[in-house]
């Protein structure tokens, strides 16, 4: 293994804001909405509201797309061909992750219903006792609720499961932050306990497989190895190596669930379930509240008293059994938040009356709103379904959505400013034109490459570079420190191009060097970008003099004069009297010492260093190299013609 010094690891980060997609059967959706739409009409409605009808498909079509081979007629028939709308919703709207929430929001937006008032009814009748000293070790928090007298149909049940999956994927960060457990309340006896126990001592009959009891360790092994349970495998690492596993227990010490992996078979929810006990265990209490409130808000619709929920007393006890913290959950808090009327108008760029603004709030589930302080302040209701409201700007945005973004009058910012390119980009652009004129074709190559391409294949020792941890592919091991491999790979992939009169390509782009001194806004990043020019000639002859000519041309264009000694050797002596250059900027070419880290790329004795003297520098700095490319390097890139190259640091010419 090649040891590469790492000055900080560049990591490719997943795009965290992938919009969640909710699949809803079209007929079901329109039944709930109480209206039918054409695909186009529904698309328009979604657009105005802020969601996107991404795809119109069916379960059967999805199965066809997902399957590697062709499916048999019987297999196809097992999938429904009912039309399904795939709707993309914003990542911060957890209330839109199921058909119930979508329908409710759309109906309120259209004015077809009023926003429900969610109620926590009565005092807690049920208790959850948390053994804090144990659960603190692995998953500290739990919040609970009871949904009374609920009616499930197959559709409601499917939606109930699907909402939990959506929440688990998004807000719960793949169950690491929060995990939801739902239980048939009539199959178990409270009071309940939440503890974390030695896995070897846990006996549990899970939802699947439900034919036997496992201890904690064996169950984790089962989920890691059993192909039918592979959907649970990703969650095993969350608790596997812990000395204690989280467990939810009823009063008979039956394990009801093993968060965040799976619920138990005993308390399994069926279509006949009438009362539901919900527990959400978590490492983030704020998110646990949001998750529980969301599940309750969405499915309390199906209780005999709609939008009502029964609270649970959650008591955190210490080792002695003393209650050290307690709360009543779910919070289902309805907040009041304020935003100045003038601020909302100004931020959106509209000027509506306070009364109109107050009415618009009803469309977006921020009603009822009130006007305060002489109609200058808008005070809105923030229901538990709108956990995305953090600041007055969120209220203003909703006012804008209710008003309709496409109704806003457009204008442009008033202040005049003078535009320009960054000097380095400007210089680069000018040189690109000139080098193009010299007959070189411009290319644009990738920044990520393999250690082989960047060092070994160029016959260079491995020097510090920015490397990626967990690269998916050898092609993404490091960020390039030279532009040369990109150009050589371009030649490699363009064998059908004509080389007979010389094939010339170039690139002006960034490389990244490890640099422990480079600071931007007070943080040492550990790496610095550097702009380079790189060109390659490949043809029937090596083209050393052609590349050399390019070097001289670049220097002339950048107002850098050749040293007297250098000019004396040149055939272009007479042209020198017209040269314009910057005071004190001088360059020369000298033989590249064989011990230079870049020397291996070149044919021995046919490599040169470009040395620059500038007024700031004082002494000569090597700003680049050029020469005939070593045959082994050509072989490594499968290039059949003799070639030469140059690579110069552009920034030093600025």
């Amino acid at each position: 293994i090649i040891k590469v010094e790492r000055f900080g690891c560049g990591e490719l980060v997943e795009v965290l804001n992938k919009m969640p997609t909710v699949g809803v059967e079209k007929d079901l959706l329109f039944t709930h909405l109480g209206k039918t739409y054409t695909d186009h009409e529904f698309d328009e409605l979604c657009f105005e509201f802020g969601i996107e009808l991404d795809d119109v498909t069916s379960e059967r079509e999805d199965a066809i797309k997902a399957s590697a081979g062709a499916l048999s007629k019987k297999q196809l028939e097992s999938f429904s061909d009912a039309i399904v709308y795939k709707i993309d919703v914003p990542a911060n709207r957890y209330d839109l992750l199921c058909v119930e929430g979508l329908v409710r929001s759309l109906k309120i937006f259209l004015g077809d219903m009023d926003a429900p008032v969610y109620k926590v009814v009565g005092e807690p009748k049920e208790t959850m006792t948390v053994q804090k000293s144990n659960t603190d070790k692995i998953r500290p928090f739990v919040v609970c609720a009871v949904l009374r007298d609920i009616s499930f149909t197959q559709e409601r049940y499917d939606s109930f499961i699907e909402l939990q999956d959506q929440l688990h994927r998004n807000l719960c960060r793949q169950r690491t932050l929060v995990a939801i457990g739902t239980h048939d309340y009539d199959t178990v006896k409270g009071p309940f306990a939440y503890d974390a126990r030695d896995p070897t001592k846990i006996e549990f009959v899970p939802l699947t497989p439900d034919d036997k009891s496992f201890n904690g360790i064996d169950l984790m092994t089962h989920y890691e190895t059993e192909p039918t349970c592979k959907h649970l495998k990703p969650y095993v690492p969350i608790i596997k190596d812990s000395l204690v596993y989280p467990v939810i227990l009823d009063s008979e010490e039956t394990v009801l669930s093993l968060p965040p992996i799976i619920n138990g078979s005993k308390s399994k929810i069926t279509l006949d379930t009438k009362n539901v006990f919900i527990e959400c265990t978590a490492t983030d209490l704020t998110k646990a509240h949001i998750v529980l409130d969301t599940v309750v808000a969405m499915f309390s619709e199906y209780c005999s008293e709609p939008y009502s929920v029964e609270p649970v007393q959650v008591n955190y006890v210490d080792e002695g059994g003393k209650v050290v913290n307690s709360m009543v959950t779910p919070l289902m808090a309805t907040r009041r938040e304020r935003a100045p009327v003038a601020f909302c108008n100004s931020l959106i760029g509209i000027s509506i009356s306070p009364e109109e603004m107050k009415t618009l709030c009803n469309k977006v589930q921020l009603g009822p709103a009130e006007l305060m302080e002489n109609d200058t302040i808008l005070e809105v209701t923030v229901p538990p379904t709108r956990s995305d409201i953090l600041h007055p700007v969120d209220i203003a945005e909703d006012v804008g959505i209710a008003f309709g973004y496409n109704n806003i009058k457009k204008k442009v910012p008033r202040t005049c400013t003078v535009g320009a390119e960054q000097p380095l980009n400007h210089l680069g652009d000018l040189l690109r034109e000139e080098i193009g004129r010299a007959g070189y074709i411009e290319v644009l190559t990738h920044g990520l490459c393999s250690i082989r391409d960047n060092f070994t294949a160029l016959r260079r020792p491995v020097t510090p570079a920015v490397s990626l941890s967990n690269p998916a592919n050898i092609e993404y091991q490091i960020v390039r420190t030279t532009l040369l491999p990109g150009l050589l790979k371009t030649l490699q992939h363009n064998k059908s191009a004509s080389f007979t009169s010389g094939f010339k390509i170039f690139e002006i782009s960034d490389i990244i060097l490890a640099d422990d001194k480079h600071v931007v806004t007070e943080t040492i990043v550990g790496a610095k970008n550097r702009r380079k020019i790189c060109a390659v000639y490949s043809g029937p002859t090596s083209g050393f003099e052609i590349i050399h000519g390019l070097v001289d041309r670049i220097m002339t264009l950048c107002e850098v004069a050749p040293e007297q000694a250098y000019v004396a050797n040149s055939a272009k002596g007479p042209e020198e009297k017209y040269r314009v250059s910057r005071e004190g900027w001088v360059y020369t070419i000298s033989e590249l010492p064989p011990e230079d880290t870049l020397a291996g790329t070149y044919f021995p004795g046919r490599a040169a260093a470009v040395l620059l003297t500038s007024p700031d520098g004082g002494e000569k700095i090597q700003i680049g190299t050029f020469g005939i490319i070593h045959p082994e390097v050509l072989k490594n890139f499968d290039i059949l013609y003799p070639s030469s190259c140059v690579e110069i640091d552009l920034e030093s010419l600025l």
Partner: protein
Amino acid sequence: GGAGSIGYRYDFQKEEAYKNLLRTHTTAISSQMLYKLANREGDFQPARYFSIDRVFRNETMDATHLCEFHQVEGLVADYDLSLGDLIGTIETFFKKIGITQLRFKPAFNPYTEPSMEVFGYHPILKKWTEIGNSGMFRPEMLRPMGLPENVRVIAWGLSLERPTMIKYKIDNIRDLFGHKVEMARTKTAPVCRF
């Protein structure tokens, strides 16, 4: 929290925030520029910035996705800007690259509020398609930088590859960017006009 917000209410971990990564959007740099703008000598002056540069994402790779590509970004920092200013600026911008019919859809970005996705009627594709994303930076982001309270920053962005591939009828991003681009395509490319 801060700047009048209830915030995310979890424990912020500095070590997590200091981890190095290859930027997934150029907004990482434009926010550094805004910080410099707020703290320069002579104090804040309204400014307009743009950037066209490379970003890196851990995408599933397919015909139209590589793990590195380019973003075009513009932003305006000025007093009392509104969503109307953002809409007007975006319309002016897209007119320059041949898209004149635009519609705006409410969207979500963690660092902008309000946010809008920009849809345009594409003259070549002959259909409405998403052409960009935009928004006004949140106060929780701007105030800690030291930007004055009534300064608002509007910003919009799009990828460089997508409009280019549409314009030049290129199906695979590898035919546009990287070492597998055919020289013949480069040699026959026209000047770029709209």
